[in-house]
C-alpha cells in the first residue's frame, strides 16, 4: 500500500458514527476514501458546508458547491451551508469532534508546525490555527521523515500552528500518541520494527513493553 493510503486508512479507524470531522488538504483528504462500513460521519468544509460528499460525476458539477480548495464537491442528504463566521464558530467553539491535518514538524510535547517555512513557503495559515486550537481531537497525517530527516523532533524549528498539543500522529511507520503531552509509540506499521521507528524519530518516545502492529 502507498504510504499516503496506509496513513489515511489507519486514521479512518478513528472515526465514529455521529462525529463532525474536518479534513485538511493532502493526505487528510484521502481519509474520506476509507470510512469504515457502517460508520456515518459528517465532514465539514471550512468554506461553509457540513455534509461534504464525493467529487461529482462529470457534467454534474455545481459551481457554487466546492471544497476549501475551490474544487467541486457534492452535498450529502442532510447537508447544510453557512457563512464563514458560523464555520469557524463550529471549529473554535468546540463543536468539531476531530480534525485531520498535514504536518511539517511535531515536537516532543505534541506541538504542531504545519503552515510555513520561513523564506520558502509562506502560504498563510488559512484555517489551520483555528482547527488545532478548537477541535476536540487533533490528528496529524504525515510522512515520518522529509528527505531522510525526522519530522517528529525534540523542538520545532518551524513556526508553531498552535500552543495546543495534538492528540495523535499517524505516519507510514507508526502511530504516536501525545496523551498527557508525552510522545508514546502506540503502534507500528505492518513489517516495521520499534527500532526502525526510533532511528527515524528525533523526539524521545515512550515505548511500552508491547507495541502492536496497526490493524488495517
Amino acid at each position, binding site marked *: 500500500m502507498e504510504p499516503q493510503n496506509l496513513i489515511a486508512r489507519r486514521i479512518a479507524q478513528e472515526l465514529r458514527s455521529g462525529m463532525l470531522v474536518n479534513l485538511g488538504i493532502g493526505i487528510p483528504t484521502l481519509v474520506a476514501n476509507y470510512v469504515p462500513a457502517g460508520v456515518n460521519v459528517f465532514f465539514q468544509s471550512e468554506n461553509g458546508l457540513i455534509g461534504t460528499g464525493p467529487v461529482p460525476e462529470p457534467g454534474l458539477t455545481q459551481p457554487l458547491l*466546492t471544497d476549501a480548495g475551490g474544487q467541486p464537491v457534492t452535498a450529502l442528504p442532510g447537508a447544510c451551508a453557512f457563512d464563514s463566521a458560523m464555520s469557524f464558530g463550529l471549529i473554535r467553539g468546540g463543536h468539531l469532534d476531530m480534525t485531520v491535518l498535514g504536518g511539517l514538524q511535531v515536537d516532543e510535547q505534541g506541538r504542531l508546525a504545519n503552515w510555513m517555512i520561513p523564506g520558502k513557503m509562506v502560504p498563510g495559515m488559512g484555517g489551520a*490555527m483555528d482547527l488545532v486550537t*478548537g477541535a476536540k481531537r487533533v490528528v496529524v497525517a504525515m510522512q515520518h521523515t522529509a528527505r531522510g530527516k525526522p519530522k517528529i523532533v525534540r523542538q520545532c524549528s518551524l513556526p508553531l500552528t498552535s500552543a495546543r498539543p495534538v492528540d495523535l500522529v499517524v505516519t507510514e511507520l507508526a502511530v504516536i500518541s501525545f496523551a498527557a503531552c508525552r510522545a508514546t509509540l502506540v503502534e507500528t506499521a505492518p513489517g516495521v520494527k520499534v527500532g526502525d521507528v526510533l532511528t527515524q524519530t528525533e523526539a524521545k518516545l515512550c515505548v511500552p513493553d508491547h507495541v502492536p502492529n496497526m490493524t488495517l
Partner: protein
Amino acid sequence: MKTISLQEAVRLIPDGASLMVGGFMAVGSPERLIDELVRQGKRDLTIVANDTARPGIGIGKLVSAGLLRKAIVSHIGLNPETRQQMIAAKIEVELGPQGTLIERVRCGGFGLAAVLTPTGVGTVVEQGKRKLDVGGKDYLLETALRADFALVQAFLADYLGNLSYALTARNFNPVIAMAADTVIVTADHIVPVGVIAPDHVATPAPVVDYVVANN
C-alpha cells in the same frame, strides 16, 4: 437601496480605497465588479478577503493587474503572483487565521471594538497584540476591521435589496455586508420582493446601498 450600473458602481470607488470582497477561492466572488475594477484601472487598493484566489479568477485578477497595495487575508498559497508581489514589496500582505479574520470583520459590522480569541496564542500571530487572561486562560485581543466598501456577491437580491446566498458561495459575503461604509451588491438573480421569504433573507435590505443592475 438604489440600483446602479456596473460602471457607475465602480466609479464610486476612489484609488486608495479599502474594499472587503466576498468569496472563497473565488467561489462567491463578485466577478463583474472585479472585472470592472480592472477595466477602470483602480489603484492602491487595500482588500480584506479570505484569500487571493488564483491568477485569472476572483481577487486573483486584481493581483495580476497590480491594483493592490495591501491584502489582509488568511491564505495566498494558491496564487504565486501574490507571493511574487509580496517578495518584490509591491503588495503588503497581512496574514491572519481565517477564523480570527472573519471575527474581526464581524466585530466591525456589529459595533464591537475587538474580540478575544484563543487562536494564535503561543504562535507568531501574537506578536504586537495584547494578551489577556480571562478565567485562567490566555486570549489574544484582535481588533475590529471595517472598510470603505463591501463588494458582495449574493445568489438572490430582491428589488429592495434583501439578499440570500447559495451553498459555499456564502462564505464572507453576509459578514462583510455589515462592515463597510458603502455596500455594493451583484447578484446571480434579481427577483421581485417576496420571492425571498422573510425567514430566508440573510442580509436585510437596509444595510445594502447599491444593487448592480443586470446588463
